[in-house]
């Protein structure tokens, strides 16, 4: 069955970035198609750790992160559910003086950005967060940060977009995009021919070939953060925990389960899929039990991992294509896109509507890779885990 569809904006990838952009665009009155090769929110956006944190981000991300920060408490109004968003605060721990010094430097550097970081010494930590065990010298606390349930938030954005009138096409991989006069033509599975004035490339870890097909190769690689979740426990930890260095991150969800991350999983034969390594998971578990005495008798009930796009400079690619008018990129969030995504969606919608945005995003320009693109395969580490580019699959 072949089908034709004509919209203002076609969005490739129904992660949190794509679906929040879809919802924002719909709110501005555009007609939108949101396409995903699988289910919306089933990739990184739906399987991440759930940290909603500004603290620790590179300074150039903070304005955008602040913008997203304003969206999180409005989820209920925006998508109909609160996504279990909890403004619990984010506490970043230091194991030694060097870590503490790094936290202090960071706090000083971003002092103007409105995060209201509070540096806490050993005694203060004892008093306020007595459930943290020994071996921590201090911490930096960001009271406005928190955590949420990625499974609900990302799926909720896509569901809200659908209710708002976005044409949500799941299990519909985009197989090729071409610029055709003043429009784009997308080839999608199921004999779908889609034409649009704008295309947003928010295909997460799979976004590279689309950029490349428009003459913009990027050193996008893949990472697979590894997660462990415990059985439900009585309340143990009140804040979202982060750590400097080779640490862990941990949060306790409403239901009582504690989610802990900190290692990397390995891809399976199909590099879209990954699985935590047994030793890696044990190491996360042991570190969590050592750091939080309240978890010493807990059982781990499940591990998981997900596929995320990563950039060598740890900043995403966000903004207009340098080669193709009407094409916008937004991918490569490097393990930290969950918090920022609702802000990215708004920014993308403004770029479509106005051709510009007041939120500074120059640092994320795809143009920054012009020089290095020539050596992508050799030195950037991008080649190894990257999805093999199949000739003919993406037609420039």
């Amino acid at each position, binding site marked *: 069955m072949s089908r034709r569809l004509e919209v203002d904006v076609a969005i490739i990838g129904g992660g949190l970035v794509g679906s929040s952009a879809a919802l924002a665009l719909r709110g501005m009155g555009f007609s939108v198609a949101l396409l995903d090769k699988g*289910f919306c*929110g*089933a990739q990184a956006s*739906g399987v991440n750790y759930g940290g909603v944190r500004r603290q620790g981000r590179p300074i150039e991300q903070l304005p955008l992160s602040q913008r997203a920060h304003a969206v999180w408490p409005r989820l209920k109004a925006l998508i*109909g*559910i609160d996504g279990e968003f909890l403004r619990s605060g984010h506490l970043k721990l230091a194991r030694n003086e060097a870590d503490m010094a790094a936290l202090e430097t960071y706090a000083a550097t971003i002092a103007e950005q409105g995060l209201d970081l509070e540096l806490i010494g050993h005694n203060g930590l004892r008093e306020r967060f007595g459930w943290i065990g020994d071996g921590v010298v201090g911490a930096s606390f960001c009271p406005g940060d928190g955590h949420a349930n990625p*499974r*609900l938030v990302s*799926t*909720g954005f896509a*569901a809200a977009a*659908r209710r708002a009138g976005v044409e949500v096409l799941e299990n519909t991989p985009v197989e090729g995009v071409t610029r055709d006069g003043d429009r784009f033509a997308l080839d999608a599975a199921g004999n779908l021919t889609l034409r649009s004035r704008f295309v947003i490339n928010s295909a997460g870890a799979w976004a590279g070939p689309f950029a490349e097909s428009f003459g913009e190769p990027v050193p996008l690689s893949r990472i697979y953060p590894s997660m462990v979740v*415990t*059985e439900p426990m009585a309340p143990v930890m009140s804040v979202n925990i982060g750590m400097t260095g080779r640490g862990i991150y941990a949060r306790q969800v409403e*239901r009582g389960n504690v989610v802990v991350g900190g290692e990397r999983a390995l891809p*399976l*034969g199909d590099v879209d899929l990954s*699985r*935590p*390594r*047994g*030793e890696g*998971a*044990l*190491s996360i*578990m*042991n570190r*969590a*039990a050592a750091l939080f005495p309240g*978890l*010493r*008798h*807990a*059982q*781990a*009930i*499940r*591990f*998981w991992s997900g596929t995320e796009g990563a950039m060598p400079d740890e900043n995403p690619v966000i903004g207009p294509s340098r080669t193709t008018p009407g094409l916008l990129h937004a991918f490569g969030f490097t393990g930290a896109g969950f918090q920022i995504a609702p802000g990215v969606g708004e920014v993308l919608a403004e770029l479509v509507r106005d051709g510009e945005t007041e939120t500074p995003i120059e640092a994320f320009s795809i143009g920054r890779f012009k020089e290095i693109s020539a050596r992508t395969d050799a030195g950037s580490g991008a080649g190894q885990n990257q999805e093999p580019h199949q000739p003919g699959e993406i037609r420039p």
Partner: protein
Amino acid sequence: MNGQSTSERQQPLIVGAGPAGIRAAQALVKAGLRPLVVDESPACGGQIYRQRLVPDGRSSRDLYGSEAQKAEALHRDFAALDGRLDYWPQALLWNLRDGRADIMVEGTSRQVAYDGLVLATGATDRILPIPGWTLPGVFTLGGAQIALKSQGCAIGSRIVFLGSGPLLYLVAWQYMKAGAKVAAVLDTAPFSAKFNLLRGLPLFPSIVLRGMRMTAELKLGGVALHYGVGDVRIEGTEKVGAIAWRQDGLEHRLACDGVGYGLALRSETQLADLAGCSFAFNQRDRALLPERDAAGRTSVAGVYLAGDGAGITGADAAERAGERSALALLQDRGLPHDASRAATLEADLARIGRFRDVLEAAFPFPAHWVRDIADTTTLCRCEEIKAGEVRAAIGQFGVHELNRLKAVSRIGMGRCQGRICGAGAAELLAHETNRNIEAVGRLRSQAPIKPVPLTLALAAQPEAAE
């Protein structure tokens, strides 16, 4: 012996020391290999030939009834392999990947490299949620049987057995023989379904006759047998107090303090999933199951399936499938194997397969029950999620695939990872979205396949199977 030398030795790994695993081990040992057998239980035998925890004066005949000889033969044959294989009882294989397994044994986790993997992981009960199924005093049929066999205790003093499948009558009969008061057997299928058993007579007369004899003995023993029961509710506040059902349009109610409930079995497929095996829909089991050929080969080279873990066929089939898969392993390694024995086993398995079709018709799964699952009935007991919440999530998020349903509703996210609620959740999702059961997919497995302590330590040196 350290890890290095083990990997060089390339030991086949057998998971499960039930009928399938034991026969697989025996065949590999006979061919001169030295497999490692791991099993969670303290003793071999699997679910069906489970041994008592401590000698308690009961004979094999008491424990296994007409199957006592088979049980004894398996226990004896496995014991005879001592010294020629490695056997880790009380060992949980909790993760698997690329020829390496993580096994929790004696309080630590060991990494074992294997070459050749026979999964003989068996099955657990299949259930659909009914009101009261989570009350203390309600057991699955398998659970009721385990209590009896390994601990020698009954699940109540006035017990009702409810459900479908041959196990329903077997467990009721075993309880009666053990001296327990069985108040009734409630069969979800109409009596007429049992006429299908006549088709099974030419295939396995002894089994059909044994079943008939058990039914007759139950009746003689004063056990009420009810057929075509529906709308079942288990009542009680702190624990089971009664069971109520509807039959031919009439309401019935019976006081009891124990209920054994099960709707046949479901395969334990988590390890096959972690091993990367491809799955396909199996109509007879109403489930997506790992694919295997007649010899037990999966889609992954070197990984074999035997017994109920790949599809419900029962203990006799499991013994044969275990041996058959071992012969396939030998053949695939270029070792001598008995081809005519393999052919005999396959022919036997095919015949048992035809018999399972008969049993399925005689003990049909009451899929229509899903219509009546009340919103207030607990669907996922680990996460305490009611059917109504699941229905709401299906509507709110517009999901029609089981893993998506898991993501938005938490079903299958708890300690059992959907082994208990998965079948019911799939039925509910299929029904709510007007799809066939095969279209909603299956819950993907994740390690650890069962809970492990957060403090579980990795054994200092990846240890050898010794």
